[in-house]
């Protein structure tokens, strides 16, 4: 019954209330969403959503099937760790002053992150990467004092060669 995080990507019709339908289903079935990201897809009228859900295999199987039942949901594809490219973006406002700004800048560079705003007593850092990278930068910056943070949640795609197999995602219906 061990819970673990799984990534699921869904194509959904871009209609009013569709997000509500999906979040309502998660709530009603007591599924645990770790993160959810949504935005336009390459197809007009369709959005692509990425979910990270926490649960055992049976729960994830149910999440996928319950998502597929929603009329506005077109396709649902679980993405395995091995085939996944995943990214998250975070904006982090960190305390900074003349004495430590250089140190922060150095850390930001090591992480290939960016400083996107500078104020006398703070900086805004933009970082993109997988969650581990975002998390570890966040940990380092927290020693300076993080006053605000926003993360997009995971977006994910299947690597080129693995794409075909998981795209329509029907294979696991047993």
């Amino acid at each position, binding site marked *: 019954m061990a819970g673990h995080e799984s990534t699921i990507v869904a194509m959904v019709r871009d209609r009013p*209330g569709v997000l509500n339908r999906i979040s309502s289903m998660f709530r*009603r079935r007591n599924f645990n969403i770790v993160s959810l990201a949504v935005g336009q897809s390459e197809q007009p009228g369709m959005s692509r959503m990425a979910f990270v859900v926490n649960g055992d295999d049976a729960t994830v*199987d*149910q999440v996928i*099937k319950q998502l597929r*039942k929603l009329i506005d949901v077109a396709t649902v594809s679980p993405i395995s760790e091995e085939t996944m490219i995943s990214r998250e973006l975070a904006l982090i406002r960190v305390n900074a002053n003349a004495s430590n700004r250089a140190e922060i800048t150095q850390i930001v560079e090591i992480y290939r992150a960016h400083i996107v705003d500078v104020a006398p007593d703070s900086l805004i850092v933009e970082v993109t990467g997988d969650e581990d990278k975002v998390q570890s930068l966040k940990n380092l910056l927290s020693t300076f004092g993080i006053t605000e943070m926003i993360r997009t949640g995971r977006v994910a795609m299947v690597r080129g060669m693995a794409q075909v197999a998981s795209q329509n995602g029907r294979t696991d219906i047993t």
Partner: protein
Amino acid sequence: MMLTGGQIVCESLIKEGVDVIFGIPGGAILPLYQDLPDYPQLHHILMRHEQGAAHAADGYARATGKVGVAFATSGPGATNLITGIATAHMDSVPTVFITGQVARAAIGKDAFQETDVTGITLPITKHNYLVMNASEIAETIKEAFYLASTGRPGPVLVDIPKDVFVEKAEFEYPETVNLPNYDMPQEADPEQVQEAVQLIKEAQKPLILAGHGVIISRAYDELMELAEKAQIPVITTLLGISSFPETHPLSVGMPGMHGMAYASLAINEADLLLGLGMRFDDRITGKLSAFAPNAKVIHVEVDPSEVHKNVRATVPLIGDLKKVLQQLVPAVEPKSHEEWVQRIEELRVEHPPMRPKVTGELRPQYVIQALSQATNGNAVIVTGVGQHQMWAAQHYTFTKQNSWITSGGLGAMGFEVPAALGAQVGRPDAVVWSVAGDGGFQMTMSELATMVENNIPVKFAIFNNRYLGMVRQWQDIFYEKSYVATHYTGNPDFVKLADAFGIFGTRVTKEEEALPAIKAAMEYPGPALIDFVVAQEENVYPMIPAGGTIDQLMEEPIEGHA
């Protein structure tokens, strides 16, 4: 052709073959109502409560297999539908609900009688719509009926703002729906069918669990062929009752909490379960880890999300039940399971169906048996929820296809009156008996007026035990007979009530009066009611407690029984 939104609704309903609508008007839906006289094909039945409208549409749909339709106005009209929508959702009943909404400009402003009906019904509909333009009504209604009636059926709600009913748009009814990713159930995967065939071949103690899906997909003949060809005994779930004739030698009856003990015991011994269009509800399985410990499972289901949800399937067969059985039956080898059938017979002898004690009181089980006898098993039985429902399931001998209508998943008291009304409207030539609890009946009895108004000749058998009987039974067994808030001390005189509504009414207090009263009610050419003043504190047995195992089976002691 330019039509108003209201006219488009009517035209679309006619295109969908709708002939009857159950509803109640109100401000927001009034423009639609005012268009109705121009469409005499659409017969509107004015209900007394929107819950009644919803259950009536449900009863109509279950009785006919067609989509049931109900109208309600915004706000309280729509919220009154909720119990009925949830009932249809839990039991997969094809229904379309059309609700009026406040005018577009008022949406979100907490306008008079505004409620977020699409929000409220999101988790209890298969899908729902808020239609913001008259030009979208036709395609929405097309989709609504398509979704309601295909795949795993269910309720679809269409919410239409008042000013959309009067807006004009070009009417053209679409031929097809644009639902590119909605899967229509197909045949099952042929390899998995082969695996199922192999499991059936190997099984020594197979059992079929026939559910509502058999009735929904009208797979009666296929079920019969499978059972007879491979000689597999057939258990029917609560909603699967009347999918297989109970007079058939392979019929084992209902399992589970109040099922036949031998059916539950047979499941416990079985080495293969074939779940056909059913969902392993907790009322059947009890404690999941102890359910059917020796059995492999073939699960035939139209809804993939039901597979592995409660019980892990050894071989899942996803598809339309009728089509899947048509694949399976020719591939299955003829077999006999004499020993197994014999073993179930032994169980039946050891654990006979309830033989109620003769106490001089009117036994509710006897009333059901009398009803079964008087109707020759030919009636459509519609029930409420509680003890009377279980006794009807246990003691009526169902031989006719689709002759049992009950609120299974939701267990909604009050279903018995309006659902029977809807069933009778859908099957005007059938004898429809509402097996009613005195509690449930009082929740929706105002619909008697609707029956009188429309001459809908439902016959009522009220099981008047002056109790919320099933709850009292739980208090008896699990709460040391502490009968909190279950005793009715001021029930109305149901015979006088019948008189007030202008229908036939009579009271039965002795068993010898039962048959003549039932016959008199059936001879009466209109709605009729019998007040069966039954034994007050009779319990339903057998019983397996909620979440329990077969070891906790409680049976009525046989000593002292007739």
